[in-house]
């Protein structure tokens, strides 16, 4: 494919892509309406291009991208499942898309009803008492719940609880969100089976602990078997327990964080509930909490009036405040609502069952060619190690990932979790056929063979993508963050 370049390279002086209407009200000179000092001296240097060039340029850029629509995307921890088209149409209904957040509740009853119902759905799925849909991403959900932990402890005269415990296998957002709330962080090492052990946890508990953040199943794709005891230990020590819900695709209809003893959790709607990830976002990270934390949830809350209509309640003295300018990423919420409605309880359970079946099938087929450090069965994802390929043939996880690109497959997550050497984290999701999974496996097995037979081919990959391997160090060293 020829080099597409940037939109600026297509500029033609005098070209216009958009025609605005003539002013239909009596116009006054700008200078009479605004002070000269407030005006810009020269127009911004934006590209001057024709509409057909814009369409062609961004179409070509899109062709240099890989999405779920293109093929399998087994990026561990990210739950890259198919995004139904119906949901896109529904989010664009004028009654959902052309509404303003400052309209009175009376004019937004349908939107509030949808949100109220979605809150109840997420409560049922997570086993929680209340949900706030406001956090616009998972990390913001973590932050919101941990700030609620802080307010809860402070409200009980326990302001000395300033420490959050996370396992060493946790997502980076966990400690980062906790630090933003002013907590200090203690990392607890995982046990030999990849699970959090009560003994390791006990050593970290004391009366300054505000809580524990745990992903379940964890980032190795393993269910934390001792979770009930772990939650009880933290509770006995006066702390609260947070569930990073990134891996809910392994649990729907099977088990619920609320029943395991967790006090709060977030849902990644852009993972489990099939809203598209948009190359990085927007997503949504609603939080569910047990009733003891309900007073601290973000404002406004949706409340039901005695006549059955819905209202927004801003008057909540204990609330942590606002974590989004308005009501969260509403457009994302519409898609997740439609997804849950389409599936029902039985359908969501089936989603989880197929996701776990698919992951175990791929795991089984790769078990010989790669090291799989932890015993199965896995849940919805698993982590393998390319340690053997690295030490024996000099082909690291990153090399293998790049070679998979040549074979037409999006690589898995690499080098995460941090506790597995040469980690490759594979999450096929439920929306793949056996044929597609076999294609994934065959590609992995081919690369494993190539590591032995032609390691230079692997280390030199990718060769067939739009670009060969990038110099990422140069990007950070010779910083260039804009064109021109």
């Amino acid at each position: 494919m020829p080099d597409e370049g940037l939109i600026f390279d297509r500029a033609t002086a005098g070209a216009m892509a958009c025609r605005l209407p003539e002013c239909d009200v009596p116009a006054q000179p700008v200078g009479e309406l605004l002070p000269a000092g407030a005006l810009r001296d020269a127009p911004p240097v934006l590209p001057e291009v024709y509409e057909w060039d814009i369409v062609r340029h961004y179409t070509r850029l899109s062709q240099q991208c890989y999405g779920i629509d293109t093929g399998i995307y087994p990026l561990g921890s990210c739950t890259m499942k198919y995004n139904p088209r119906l949901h896109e149409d529904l989010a664009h209904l004028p009654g959902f898309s052309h509404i303003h957040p400052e309209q009175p509740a009376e004019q937004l009853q349908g939107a509030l009803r949808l949100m109220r119902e979605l809150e109840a759905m997420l409560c049922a799925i997570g086993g929680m008492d209340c949900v706030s849909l406001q956090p616009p991403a998972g990390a913001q959900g973590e932050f919101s719940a941990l700030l609620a932990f802080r307010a809860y402890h402070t409200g009980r005269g326990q302001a000395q609880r300033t420490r959050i415990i996370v396992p060493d296998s946790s997502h980076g957002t966990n400690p980062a969100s906790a630090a933003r709330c002013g907590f200090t962080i203690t990392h607890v090492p995982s046990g030999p089976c990849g699970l959090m052990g009560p003994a390791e946890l006990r050593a970290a508990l004391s009366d300054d602990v505000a809580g524990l953040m745990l992903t379940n199943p964890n980032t190795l794709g393993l269910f934390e078997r001792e979770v009930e005891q772990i939650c009880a230990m933290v509770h006995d020590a006066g702390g609260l327990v947070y569930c990073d819900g990134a891996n809910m695709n392994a649990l729907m209809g099977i088990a619920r964080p609320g029943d395991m003893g967790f006090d709060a959790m977030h849902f990644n709607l852009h993972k489990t509930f099939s809203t598209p990830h948009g190359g990085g976002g927007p997503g949504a990270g609603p939080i569910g909490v047990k009733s003891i934390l309900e007073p601290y949830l973000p404002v406004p809350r949706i409340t039901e009036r005695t006549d059955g209509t819905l209202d927004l309640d801003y008057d909540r003295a204990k609330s942590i405040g606002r974590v989004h300018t308005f009501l969260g990423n509403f457009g994302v919420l519409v898609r997740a609502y439609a997804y849950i409605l389409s599936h029902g309880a039985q359908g969501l359970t089936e989603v989880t069952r197929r996701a776990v079946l698919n992951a175990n099938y791929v795991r089984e087929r790769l078990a010989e060619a790669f090291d799989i450090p932890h015993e199965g069965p896995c849940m919805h994802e698993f982590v393998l190690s390319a340690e053997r390929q690295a030490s024996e043939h000099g082909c690291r996880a990153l090399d293998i990932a790049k070679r998979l690109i040549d074979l037409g497959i999006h690589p898995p997550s690499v080098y995460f979790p941090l506790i597995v050497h040469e980690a490759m984290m594979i999450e096929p999701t439920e929306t793949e056929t056996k044929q597609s999974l076999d294609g994934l496996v065959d590609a992995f097995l081919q690369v494993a063979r190539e590591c032995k037979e032609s390691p230079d081919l692997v280390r030199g990959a990718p060769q067939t993508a739009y670009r060969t391997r990038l110099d990422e160090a140069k990007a950070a060293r010779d910083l260039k963050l804009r064109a021109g």
Partner: protein
Amino acid sequence: MGRASVRDADSAAMMAALGVGSVDELFRTIPPELRLAGRMDLPGPLSDLEVEDRCRRLAATNLDGLTAPCFAGGGVYDHFVPATVSHLVARGEFTTAYTAYQPELSQGMLAALFEFQTMLCELTGMDVANSSLYDGGTALAEAVLVAAGSTRRSRVVVAGAVNPRYLECVRTLAGVTVDLVTVPAVDGHADLAAVALDAGNDCAAIVVQQPNYFGCLEPMQEVSALAHAAGALLIVSFDPVSLGLLGPPGHYGADVAVGEGGMMCGPMSLGGPGLGLFTCTRDLVRRMPGRVVGETVDTLGRRSYVNTLQTREQHIRREKATSNICTNQALCAVAAGIYLATMGPRGIRAVADLCLQKAHYAARAIAALPGFSMAFPEGPFLKEFVVRCPVPVGEIKARLAETGPFIGGVDVSSLLGDGHYMSVAVTEKRTRDEIDGFVRALGGVSRA
């Protein structure tokens, strides 16, 4: 819509390969006492037609801006977004991709974000833009945290009328680190003398919004001088569309300029997804939150793009990261880039100019109605202004929804004393007929 199943032939073959007779065996690591005994209490499953019907019914009970011309602002504006935007961002290669962890497979997305960063720098006159935050309020919170980190001070002075929703975000998201001091506006503008008194040597930043929450223009040069005299940063919350006419923040010394860009991406969508715009000076780049795309080369020396400065980010730095943000609003940033490219330098100027003319036309007409007056007759303003109404704003908005219907302005009374102050926003989309109708409806409300 198809649904995943474990009852198809594929599943049988995979179970056979795994040597299990039932998928349930794969869940054996979950202790039996933790297994959900019953079924989740959920509605559905519904067919596509039923889901669509239910959603259409819900949507129909909202008063939407296609039925009722929208005169509300306060951070969300009903601007025109050309068809190129919705069509191009709907391409599945963009919408169904994850963050570009494998840049060789995401060059198009990264290039589009790099273009967005470039155009945003052009528009704002700032050195650096990141590739998006959540929205205007959370972007302001991040800006305040950057200022506190770089100055090692914790007091932040808010000058004049900054969007109160934004300030609520700042208090929640930065309240652990930052002590927020608000200096209320006087006559619709920042009170420079009072700001000067508060901006002592312990001040990390002065925050100012341009145009401010009441729509008025602030004296940016003066506020900038005050901030820098105190050794503080100047943080500006801007409206990108206004920059078609107004001086860019970089030209009057902003150190961090943030804003809401949702109006460039698509319809209002109840204020979310929005687009958090974050720009800053070169000096602050390593403190910047969120993802940023940089240029590099591949092994053949070809110009390429990659998410860079990742050592600031949570997946590397964990609790020492500059921010906890992971998922952002990348697709919205691509949309904003397509918007700016479609508008071009003349289009963006024309939009701002149309807003200016139509807002002034509306303001003159409303101020001429009996009982109505401009709250800040001195202005100056661009597309939004506050009127004092003869009856409480809540009543007016309810009546406007019946007569017309119209989506009324934002009730800003809580900032101005009693229940009679409404901000009115007029974008380029509002026709003379719509404005005249709106003014007539307002007149009718006051007579009733």
